[in-house]
């Protein structure tokens, strides 16, 4: 049998929690304040520099390169999750 499961033992919910914490720290809000679809710009007053900080932390934490073109798509937690999932290759 081939084991293809995520060896870190984390699933969708855990990945979302990780990202929520990382993003909330950059936006200087409490993790529970960050909803899955709340727009970083509209609801949490993020600017382009915050977006770059989120990108930088993701690259560091998951050791992936996320092209800056992807930034435009990363407008909320769910969108970041989908982008990172595709880059890292999560199978959640």
């Amino acid at each position, binding site marked *: 049998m081939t084991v293809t499961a995520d060896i870190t033992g984390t699933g969708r919910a855990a990945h979302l929690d990780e990202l929520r914490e990382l993003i909330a720290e950059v936006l200087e809000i409490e993790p529970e304040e960050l909803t899955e679809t709340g727009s970083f710009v509209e609801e949490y007053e993020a600017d382009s*520099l915050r977006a*770059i*900080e989120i*990108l*930088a932390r993701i*690259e*560091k934490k998951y050791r992936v390169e996320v092209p*800056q073109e992807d930034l435009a798509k990363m407008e909320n937690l769910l969108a970041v999750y989908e982008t990172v999932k595709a880059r890292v290759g999560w199978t959640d």
Partner: protein
Amino acid sequence: MSDHAHIRSVLPHRHPILLVDQIEEIEHFDHIVTVKAVTGSEPCYAGMAETTDPRRFAYPRSLMVESFGQSGALLWLESIRREGRELTGSLIFAAAKNVTFHRAAYPGDTLRHVAHIEQIVGDNAFLRGQTLVDGELAADYGSVIAVVRQTESLDGRQAPVASQLAAIPRQHTMEEQ
């Protein structure tokens, strides 16, 4: 390498806001050690009322942070130049976070900055480091971000960083201890 003329060829800053005097040590894309001498003839002391309170002559923290930021930018831009590349646009001190101050510097003191590159993402450099005075910790910088942004010059052409004036710091979110 460590001469002042070289620093001027890399940083766009000029008197009186060029706040790095010398490079003591540089390891490209990793860290830099720079010095900045504080003197009684700094513009920040000009026009001060006569006072017998020596604490009034503490070197402004904002300038200490700026001097550190310039040191980090110097490391970043010099490292890139060594690869034969040059960034175009304006160098901007974008943000400082988790900055703590531990002792003041006075005229006659030398600031010694140790700046590390944490990460480079596109035209954004994430730095961290410390400022030492007489071997003692004067300031600790958890995160400083320097960026280069495109700004059209008057004739519409882009100039290399070193030939443009640096922009005013856009955002400071300093937390003091």
